[in-house]
C-alpha cells in the first residue's frame, strides 16, 4: 500500500510504497488536466556487457537497450499506439545511457491507460519478422542524428573524454550493430532487466491513489524475480583520452562542447545529491549569465546566447559539459580554464546566496510541470536517491565545499574539446 509523506516547505505531498516488487511514487497535482505515468528500468545503452550468475560476461550489440524500447510497443495484435489513441492518450519512450523509460500522458481514462502501460511493458512480443522490420526504422533514426550537429558534437566530446566506458557510444548504436540484433538477444536483456525490482513507477497528476494501487496490484507481474546478475563496471583513467576532436559538417558557425572529466569515486546514493548540487552551484557561479566570465565572453563576441552547461553524475563516470557556438571555441576553453584558476580560492558569499536562491526557485518551479516533474523525480528514484532532499541539502552546502570542487577543476589533463564546423 502507498503511504503519504508531506513536504510542508513546498506545500506538496507524495504517496510511496512497493507494489508487487515495483517501487512506486505518486505526486498528486490537483487541478491539472494532464496526468503522467512513467515506468522506468535501470537499463540503458551503457549496459552492454553483463553476466548472469554462474556465467561469464557477455557482450551485446551496441544500441540493444534502445532497440528493445522500440520493440516493446509491439503486441501480438499489432502496435500498442492505437490502443492508447482510442483512450485519448499519447504513449512514448526513450532510452539514455543509464535507463529506458516508457510513459504516457492522458486527460481522461487514467486508470485504463495505466493498465495498458504496465501490460505492454511486461508483455514482450518479439519475432524474427517484427525485429527485422524495426531495423529500417532505427537505421533512419540513426541517420537523422548523424545529420544533427548538436548530437554529434555531444557524442564526439564523450568519445574524446573516455577511453573505454560505453558512455562514449551513441545510444541507438550503429547501423552495423543494430543489424546483429536478434529476438534471442533481446529476450536475454529483457529477462534480466525488466523485472519489477529493477524498475520504478512514477506518477504525477490529478489522480486517484486507490485506483493506482488496484491497477498495479492486478497488473504488475509477481512471477518475475530479480536474477543475480552483474553489470560490467569500467575503471576509467582520470585523464581524457584525447584533448581535442574536430569534425566538419559545413556549419556556418562552429558548435563546441568543452568537457571536464570528473572523478565519481566515493559517490554513492548517500552523497549523490550533495555532489550534484555542489557542481550545479559551481557551474552557475562560473557560467550563468550573472557571472563576470559570461559577461566578458559575451560582450567580446566570443560566445552567444546558446552558451550552456550541464553536469552528469553516475557510479562509474561523471563529467561537466559546457557548450555553445563560437568562432573561436579553443579560446573559450582557454579563457574558462584561466578564469577558474583565478577564482578557485574564494567564493563570494553574496554570489553563493544568490545562486542558491535561484536554485530554490527553479526547484519550486518544477512542480508546475506535470511531465517535467515526473521526469525529474524518476531520475533520482531509479538511483535510490530521494529528490525531495534537494531543498535541505542545498541550504546546507557551504563555501568550503564549493571551493574544494572549484579547485578540482584546475586539473589540466581532465579537459577536452569537441568542435564541429
Amino acid at each position, binding site marked *: 500500500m502507498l503511504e503519504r509523506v508531506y513536504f510542508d516547505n*513546498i506545500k506538496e505531498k507524495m504517496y510511496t510504497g512497493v507494489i508487487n516488487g515495483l517501487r512506486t511514487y505518486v505526486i498528486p*497535482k*490537483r*487541478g*491539472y*488536466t*494532464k496526468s503522467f505515468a512513467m515506468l522506468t528500468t535501470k537499463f540503458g545503452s551503457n549496459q552492454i556487457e553483463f553476466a548472469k550468475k554462474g556465467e561469464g560476461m557477455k557482450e551485446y550489440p551496441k544500441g540493444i537497450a534502445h532497440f528493445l524500447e522500440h520493440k516493446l510497443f509491439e503486441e501480438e495484435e499489432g*502496435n500498442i*499506439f*492505437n490502443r492508447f*489513441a*482510442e*483512450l*485519448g*492518450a*499519447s*504513449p512514448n519512450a526513450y532510452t539514455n545511457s543509464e535507463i529506458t523509460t516508457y510513459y504516457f*500522458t*492522458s*486527460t481522461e481514462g487514467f486508470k485504463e491507460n495505466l493498465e495498458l502501460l504496465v501490460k505492454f511493458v511486461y508483455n514482450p512480443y518479439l519475432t524474427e519478422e517484427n525485429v527485422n*522490420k*524495426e*531495423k529500417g*526504422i532505427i*537505421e*533512419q*533514426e540513426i*541517420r*537523422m542524428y*548523424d*545529420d*544533427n*550537429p548538436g548530437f554529434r558534437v555531444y557524442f564526439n566530446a564523450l568519445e574524446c573524454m573516455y577511453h573505454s566506458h560505453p558512455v562514449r557510444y551513441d545510444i541507438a548504436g550503429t547501423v552495423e550493430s543494430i543489424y546483429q540484433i536478434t529476438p534471442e538477444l533481446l529476450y536475454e536483456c529483457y529477462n534480466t532487466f525488466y523485472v519489477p525490482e529493477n524498475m520504478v513507477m512514477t506518477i504525477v497528476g490529478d489522480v486517484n491513489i486507490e485506483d493506482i494501487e488496484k491497477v498495479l496490484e492486478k497488473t504488475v507481474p509477481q512471477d518475475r524475480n530479480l536474477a543475480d546478475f552483474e553489470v560490467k563496471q569500467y575503471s576509467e583513467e582520470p585523464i581524457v583520452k584525447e584533448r581535442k576532436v574536430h569534425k566538419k*559538417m559545413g*556549419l*556556418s*558557425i562552429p558548435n563546441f562542447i568543452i568537457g571536464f572529466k570528473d572523478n565519481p569515486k566515493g559517490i554513492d546514493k548517500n552523497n549523490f545529491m550533495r555532489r550534484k548540487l555542489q557542481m550545479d552551484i559551481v557551474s552557475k557561479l562560473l557560467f*550563468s*549569465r*550573472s557571472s*563576470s566570465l*559570461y*559577461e566578458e565572453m*559575451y*560582450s567580446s*563576441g566570443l560566445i*552567444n*546566447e546558446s552558451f550552456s552547461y550541464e553536469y552528469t553524475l553516475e557510479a562509474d563516470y561523471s563529467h561537466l559539459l559546457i557548450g555553445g*557556438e563560437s568562432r573561436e571555441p579553443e579560446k573559450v576553453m582557454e579563457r574558462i580554464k584561466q578564469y577558474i584558476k583565478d577564482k578557485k580560492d574564494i567564493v563570494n558569499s553574496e554570489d553563493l546566496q*544568490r545562486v542558491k*536562491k*535561484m*536554485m*530554490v*526557485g*527553479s526547484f*519550486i*518551479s518544477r*512542480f*508546475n510541470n506535470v511531465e517535467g516533474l515526473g521526469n525529474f523525480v524518476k531520475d533520482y528514484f531509479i538511483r535510490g536517491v530521494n529528490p525531495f532532499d534537494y531543498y535541505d541539502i542545498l541550504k546546507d552546502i557551504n563555501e568550503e565545499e564549493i571551493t574544494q570542487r572549484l579547485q578540482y577543476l584546475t586539473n589540466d589533463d581532465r579537459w577536452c574539446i569537441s568542435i564541429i564546423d
Partner: protein
Amino acid sequence: MDNINIIKSEKFKNNAISLVIPLDLDNRVTEYNLIAALLKRGTMKYPTSKAIWEHLQNLYGAVFDIVVSKKGEKLFLNFYIQCINDTYALEGEPLLKEALDFLYEVVNNPLVTEKGFDESYFEIEKDNLRDLINSRKDNKDSYALDRILEIITEGEPYSIYKYGDVEKLNAIKNEDLPSLWKEIYNNNPRFLFACGNIEGKALGDKVALLSNNAGKDISIPKTSFKNEVKEVKELMDVNQGKLCLGYRTNVSIFNGDYFALTVMNSILGGGTHSKLFNEVREKNSLAYYSYSFIEKFKGLLVISCGIDSSNYEKATTICKTQMEEVKSGNISKEEINSAKKKLISDLRTITDSQYSYMDYISALRAYGIQYNIEDIIRELEKVDIDRVVQCANTMELNGVYFMTK
C-alpha cells in the same frame, strides 16, 4: 475590448506574465529582431547582462526572455517573465510586483541615447543576428520545413524569414532604432496576459500601462490556389533525405471549416494513430518520423518525413496516397475518434503550461478571434467523416521539397 487578460489559477506555484506585440511581417523584420535582442541587453536601471541576471537570480531565478515567432503573416514579440509565487519567497519579497516592474523597465527604459542603443551592444547583437540568420541551414529538419513553406508561399509576406536577412541587417543604422521601437510600441496593440494565483488588484497600475488598445485593422492572410506544383531538390551533404510536401488548404481559422481541417490533419499525420505514421513508418519501415501539420492562420498543410534518398519515389507515392485516402473518405470510425481524442487532449493540456496557454490565446486574440479552448473543443466534437472528406477535397498540392546528397 480590453487587451488585459488575467488567467487566475491556483494550481501553479509560479506567476507568469506575457506582453505580446503582434507586428506585420514586412521588410522591417530584421530590425524587429535586432531591437528584441538589444532590449534584452540592458536598461537604464540594469545596464549590463550581468546586472539584469543578478537581479533576476535574486528574484529566485525568474525566467525572462523575448521570444520572436511567426504566426500567419505576423511576427509576434513575446516579452515573457515568470517567477515563483510570493508565498514561497523566503523573506517575503514581493516577487510579482518586482517581475512586472522589470518588464516595464525593459520596454520603457531601454539603454538608449540620441545616437541609438549602446554602440558595442549594437555591434555584438548585429553579429549574433547575422550568425543566427546564416546558421539556418545548420539544422536540417527545421530548414527543410522552412523551405517547403517558403516555396508554396513565394512572393507573399508569409515567405519572409522570421529572423530577417543579412543584406538588410548590414544596412541598419543604430540611430534609427530607438524611434522605430517607440513607433512599434505605441502604434500596435499590446496584449498583456497574466497567469497564476493572481488577483487583478495585486498587479497594480503597471498592467494598464503595459497593455495598449491601439488598434490597427486586422489583416487576414490571403489563401489562394496556385494551380501548380513546384518541385525543388536541394543538394546537401546529409545522411538522411528530407522529404516535404506542401499543400494549400484553402481553409483557415478565418474561413471555411477550420474544425474539419484540424481533424483531417490529425487523421492524416497528427500522431501515432495517423495514416502517415502507420503507413510510412510502421508498415513500410521507410522513416523514423513521418507526420503532417497545419498552419491555421495562413491555411497551409505540410507532410514531412526523413527517408533514405533511394526511397524518394516510393515515399512520395505513399504520402500522396494517404492524402488521397482521406479525400476519398477511406477513414475508419476508430481513426476519426482517435484523431478527435488526441486533439482535444492536446488542447486541454495547453492549460497546464502558463507559457503555452498565454501563447496560444494571445495569437487568437491578436487576430481578433474570441474562441476559448473549450469553444474549440465543442466544435471539434461535432466534426464527422463527411465534413473531413469535404475539407480534404479543398487541399491542393503546391510544392515538393527534397533535401538529398
